[in-house]
């Protein structure tokens, strides 16, 4: 029998951006804009669906070039345009479930730019 375990963790990231909240929100909401940043370093995305609406579900297959073994499935639980996105996401590596996360993105105006909190 495979060993089953669950470890729980939480973290919060905060960033300030020069872009106004509407522009920052669009970087999540608009597929072409999200594709510009949503994979890190030299990794590639080989399959991606978009369904940015409350209750919408998306799939993203990604990983190192030639070996895209990660599959993330995301479901949008709450969307407040320009202000907030709440989503749940499962990540599988070679078909093994490795994590289930609840993500809240909050966007606030800060001066002429925005402050973003990612929990």
């Amino acid at each position, binding site marked *: 029998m495979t060993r*089953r375990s*669950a470890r*729980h963790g*939480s973290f*919060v990231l905060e960033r300030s951006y020069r872009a106004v909240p509407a522009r920052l929100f669009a970087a999540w909401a608009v597929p072409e804009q999200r594709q510009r940043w949503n994979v890190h370093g030299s990794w590639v995305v080989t399959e991606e669906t978009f369904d940015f609406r409350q209750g919408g579900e998306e799939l993203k297959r990604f990983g190192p070039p030639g070996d895209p073994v990660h599959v993330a499935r995301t*479901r949008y*639980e*709450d969307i*407040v345009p320009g*202000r*907030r996105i*709440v989503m*749940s996401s*499962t990540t599988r590596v070679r078909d093994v*479930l490795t994590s*289930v*996360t*609840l993500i*809240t993105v*909050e966007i*606030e*105006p800060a001066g002429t730019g925005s402050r973003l909190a990612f*929990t």
Partner: protein
Amino acid sequence: MSKHTAVHGTFALERTFPSAPERVFQAFADPKAKARWFAAPADWEQSRGKMEFKVGGKEHMSGAPPGHQQHVFDATYLDIVPNQRIVYVYEMHIGEAKISVSLATIEFKPAGKGTKLVLTEQGVFLDGYDDAGSRERGTKGLLDQLEAALR
């Protein structure tokens, strides 16, 4: 502008039951067994939707305290390992307002002849809804009802 707030909270509850993990798991997996304990207080008017206990499946419940707005529970199962683990995400609404989104993980571990259950909830409370620990208290109450149902 301050209307759209988000307050984050996590709690974990542990209980040990004399029943075996298979039986405790069954109390979550079988709609009839679950209905015996996963329920609003007796004086609430409540209704229960179809429960689909499978990955990607949904569960829906609603109820209202006498003279108050409807409370709605909407869950989606994200991971199920028979007799060992259940992970689901759920939203709560009161009336028209979405008050919270939570990730719940329930682990079932053998403990002697019985079962140690660990329930962890990582939640976000929205738009000024002040939870003040009531979700944790409410969940403890549900586990009390589960304990009684397993007897």
